[in-house]
């Protein structure tokens, strides 16, 4: 039985195709003008990789902020539910999920089955979201994907005094003009985003192992900063960016089998 999950985010769209509790194929693409277009493109990519056609998909679940605009899915689920489910499938010991997305940040408490027990999210303020990283990367003319490598070269600790993205951008430009080193600035930026995300997570009880999901988790500098800000063992999962889509594909499987595929049946945990 083949199922799929499609996570249409603000910056990227993700698709995962699963069979027998295993990932057959996955794809990530940059968001297009419409969520529908983004979803179709990323799903086509995944299907091609798996050498399938849409007809082979028994059930498809959509999630992410654009989920209501995707016509080909059988049902939709909230991002919170999918991220929780995906995280526990990827790392069964996880009880807290921190997901930093392009336009929001979420902290989720989960039980051993991957069900949500509590969650909180910030989509009101750009600080603490991936957008903060994006805006600064743009201002400094650095590729978003290079931020992690750059921050690893930091030798001097700087702390940003502003929390607001708009004010921090000005502060960073002043730092550059005053001769501060870019790696030190990027490291400070990662700490600023991490501190905000950690404050959000700590506002709900943080228990058990903590995992960071979302595309921002691929940024190694961000991962280290969040680990320090949380002061706990942060677990690195193999596929942080497609975590929501994995969750969606698992929910698709549930819809067909009428129950949950056991999260514990999968143990793929890579300690940080």
């Amino acid at each position, binding site marked *: 039985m083949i199922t799929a999950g499609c996570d249409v985010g603000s910056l990227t769209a993700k698709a995962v195709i699963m069979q027998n509790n295993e990932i057959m194929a996955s794809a990530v693409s940059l968001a297009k003008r419409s969520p529908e277009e983004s979803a179709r493109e990323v799903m086509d990519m995944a299907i091609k990789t798996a050498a399938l056609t849409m007809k082979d998909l028994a059930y498809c679940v959509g999630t992410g902020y654009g989920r209501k605009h995707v016509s080909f899915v059988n049902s939709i689920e909230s991002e919170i539910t999918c991220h929780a489910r995906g995280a526990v499938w990827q790392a069964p010991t996880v009880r807290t999920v921190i997901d930093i997305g392009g336009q929001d940040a979420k902290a989720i408490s989960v039980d051993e089955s991957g069900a949500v027990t509590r969650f909180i999210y910030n989509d*009101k*303020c*750009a600080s603490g979201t991936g957008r903060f990283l994006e*805006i600064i990367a743009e201002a400094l003319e650095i590729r978003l994907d290079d931020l992690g490598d750059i921050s690893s070269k930091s030798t001097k600790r700087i702390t940003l005094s*502003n929390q*607001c*993205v*708009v004010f921090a951008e000005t502060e960073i430009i002043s730092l550059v003009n005053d001769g501060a080193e870019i790696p030190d600035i990027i490291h400070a930026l990662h700490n600023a985003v991490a501190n905000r995300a950690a404050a959000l997570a700590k506002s709900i009880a943080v228990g058990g192992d903590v995992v960071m999901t979302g595309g921002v988790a691929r940024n190694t500098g961000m991962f280290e900063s969040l680990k320090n800000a949380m002061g706990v063992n942060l677990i690195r999962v193999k596929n942080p960016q497609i975590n929501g889509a994995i969750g969606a594909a698992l929910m698709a499987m549930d819809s067909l089998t009428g129950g949950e595929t056991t999260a514990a049946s999968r143990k793929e945990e890579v300690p940080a």
Partner: protein
Amino acid sequence: MIVAGCDVGSLTSKAVIMKDGKIIESMIIKSKAKPGDSADEVMRQAVSRAGLTMEDISYCVGTGYGRDRISFVNEALTEIACHGRGAQWLIPSARTVIDIGGQDCKAMRLDEKGNMVKFTANDKCASGTGRFLEVMARVLHVELSDLGQMSSTSKSPINLASACTVWAQADVIQHLNNGVPVADIAAGINSAMAARMSIIVNNIGFERDVVMTGGVAKNSGVVSALEKLLGLRIKRVTKSDPQLAGAIGAALYAQDKSKGGNA
């Protein structure tokens, strides 16, 4: 006796020269990268327009966020002190003063003597500060000074759902792409600004008369939107430019000092 006040803000720098309690010259310039340079430049222009030299100024008080980096002042005082004093001079009946700076929003309550009795400010978030409007004017490709009057020509103002400047900017761009008239977007921006300000004002609890100072006081769209939200009429500053309130307050303190009175 000639005294001066110099208010070095993040966006603009202001200088006021007073003689015997009357403003004889004033100047507003865009702030430079270094506060010290902004102060030198705005004071140089004001002094030269007044046909004076720096030697003619018997006492000068500096204020604003760059106040500690002004070389020529005799003394530096906080913005709160100067804004309260300036507002009370502009409108003696002022009991609540809302001052919008380039990167903050302050609300203060004054007693009959102009002493500050309560104060609150937001300088953590760009929303509700001058920076919000500055960012929006840039997105709309309009002058900051034109943004206010655009509200009056709007037929159906947009509703900006996001308070965050970053998200609101994305919303505005989307409205522009959808072909929404610029006046309707501007009106929505002014209303969003007023809504954020009203939170601060309600927080401190306002008492009449309510006065607005700072450059945003000249934005008629924001002022009338705020009046609607607060349900009262905001006293208009006519005696001088409301943007000069801080510099006026500084000059008044300078006058006290040069007279030998206490500030």
